[in-house]
């Protein structure tokens, strides 16, 4: 009794700390349920879009096998290939565009600089979806909506406008001390040499960040790919294909396969994200610094 009395204050606090941890655990649980549920469903042996239990009654790898063997409705490896191709092309072009624009706006001074930045801001206020529909019509007039040119079209659309999204990279360049390039310029280096020999080596993190995020883009985007692909199944990206798996006519057969596909693409994308999140946070706070 006396010990309890002596520890009364610490005990009260200890209970509070314990409660805080419990609360945090509950919150974390709520946030993780959907992800956990996808993983469970991907190993579920029974078909159908719903099950009466949270944990599967039968575990199996059938859903994964189905994705890579059953091409009757959805050709998952083909979708993966399409997405990979688009992602690689997109990440190279986008990174080139973003780094060029960000460096120019951060370091070089010229008349059109401010107007360009304001224009970029105005463009970003338009719903991106609006230009997408128009792009679809342009591409359809060019006859690119079916056939291999559709891939080119998708790469163009993903990468073409990438230059507008320069803010995070610019935020990073702004934090690289200007004393470095000034010193180099006094030594007679041209702006091009400053960029390639000084700024680029110092900016590896942001270049890697831009490469990785633009690589992940086509895996995550669903709307643009859906509008552009329309019914051409051969050119589906994973996002479009997976969305189709949940359409009424397929959901019973393909729901568990959808979960398996989700796990397959989420693992690399999540890894990429974890690798880049530091730069994301830095870039955003850097951008805030103006």
């Amino acid at each position, binding site marked *: 009794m006396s010990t309890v009395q002596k520890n009364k204050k610490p005990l009260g606090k200890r209970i509070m700390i314990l409660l805080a941890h419990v609360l945090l655990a509950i919150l974390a649980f709520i946030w993780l349920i*959907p992800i956990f549920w996808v993983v469970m469903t991907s190993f579920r042996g029974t078909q159908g879009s719903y099950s009466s239990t949270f944990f599967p009654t039968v575990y199996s790898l059938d859903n994964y096998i189905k994705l890579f063997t059953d091409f009757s409705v959805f050709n998952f490896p083909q979708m993966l290939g399409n997405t990979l191709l688009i992602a690689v092309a997109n990440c190279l072009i986008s990174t080139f565009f973003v780094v060029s624009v960000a460096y120019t706006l951060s370091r070089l001074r010229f008349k059109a600089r401010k107007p*360009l930045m304001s224009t970029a801001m105005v463009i970003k206020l338009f719903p991106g*979806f609006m230009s997408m529909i128009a792009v679809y019509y342009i591409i359809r007039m060019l006859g690119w909506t079916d056939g291999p040119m559709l891939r080119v079209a998708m790469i163009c659309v993903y990468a073409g406008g990438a230059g507008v999204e320069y803010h995070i990279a610019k935020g990073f360049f702004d934090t690289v001390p200007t004393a470095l390039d000034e010193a180099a310029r006094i030594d007679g280096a041209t702006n091009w040499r400053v960029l390639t020999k000084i700024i680029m080596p110092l900016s590896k993190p942001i270049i890697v960040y831009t490469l990785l995020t633009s690589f992940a883009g086509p895996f995550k985007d669903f709307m643009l790919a859906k509008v552009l692909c329309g019914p051409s199944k051969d050119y589906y990206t994973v996002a479009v294909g997976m969305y189709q798996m949940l359409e009424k006519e397929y959901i019973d057969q393909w729901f568990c396969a959808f979960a398996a596909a989700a796990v397959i693409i989420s693992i690399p994308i999540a890894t990429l994200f974890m690798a880049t999140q530091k730069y994301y946070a830095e870039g955003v706070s850097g951008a805030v610094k*103006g």
Partner: protein
Amino acid sequence: MTERGYPEREITALGALQNGSMAVKLSAVIWGLGCLVRKQFVKGAVYLLIEAGIIFFMAEAGFYNLGKLVTLGDVEQQKIWNEAKSLYEYVDGDRSLVILLYGIITLAIILCGVLMVRISLRSAYAAELECRRRGRALTLRQEVSALFDANLHRTLLFLPLLGILVFTVLPLLFMTSMAFTNYSVLNDKLVLFDWVGLDNFQRMLNLSGDLGRTFWPVLGWTLCWAVIATFSNYFIGLLLTLFINWKEIRGKKFWRFCFVLTVAVPHFVTLLIIRQMLQPTGAVNVLLQNMGVISAPLPFFTDTAWARTAVILINIWVGVPYVLLQMTGILQNIPPELYEAARVDGANPVVMFFKITLPYVLFVTTPYLITTFTGNINNFNVIFLTSQGLPRAVESTAGSTDLLITWLYKLTIDNRYYDVGAVIGIMTFVSLSIVSLLTFRFSGSYKDEEGFR
């Protein structure tokens, strides 16, 4: 800078016209003339070629396109009886959409021409000034090397800007122009359509009109949604960050990882899964029914109030980890002296939160808040992949959780009311511009850039 040529601002097209020699002035008409006179042969030839190209295009197609643009075409597809083959043959009529696109491209090329006049004048004038000063104009080699130094911005920006113009600006103009036509499945206007001026806007803004009755409620809900979604995420995220930062919490990195993991998984996956879980026969309802909590499935996407609450909660689920990610960094940047001084003055944690943390965070994140707000107004994924705008009344094209952007999708992709869709796009742009401008004007970061530094 002067070592490698004249500073840019001395040389303007106007200055060229006022002070340049005859050759310079004539460069406005014959592009590259001024350069050719000053022995810049390659540059001059390129300009001339561009001029020839534009003139050829205009003669061949440009003027025709512009003429058609005025009416958007009026020749219908015709059926002509072919005696020889004894069958009807179809003769292509005008297609307004093609005419519209070609017209806009022609206008863009004309604009390029105007810009070229300016460039030609400035080049000619620059060459002349250079000649006056040191006897000869810059050689090609010097000009090219300037592109990697004093003019590096032109080199670096050329391709990105071209990409933005072709794949963002041109499509936007194309779509915007549709708002002033009657391009729609209504009255069979999909092949041939006409300019209608501001009619669509009138129909949209008219409170009692067919479209106005849908538009205003959707706009209201969109703004409501954007405000609630932005601030709920922001404050819940801030509280969660502070909570995890509390010195008594163990395993901070682990907790953060748990939340951030949900950002790492592609959203369309998790959102589709959540939609599936909230179906009448989905995991949530099945579990609750099995546990005996409820007897009938909860009407997540069939009742307006439920659906709206559901999408806001889903958005909290989606957005809070992002806020957590950023706030963690921002909170670490608050100067600790501020807190120490407050503690010396005997302030309690609540006072410190409202007097130090909140003002600091708000100050730093105002630009971010605006971006998030914009993002939420255009938050297509959270709505389209979960509630799909449902519940929807039969006679309406928009459901009660539809935002302007998802309504735009439905009108254009599903219903093919392109004219109205374009108007909605413009309306979204207008409301976003107003909100962003206002917040920028009245926010602390705008008035006092150095506030906390």
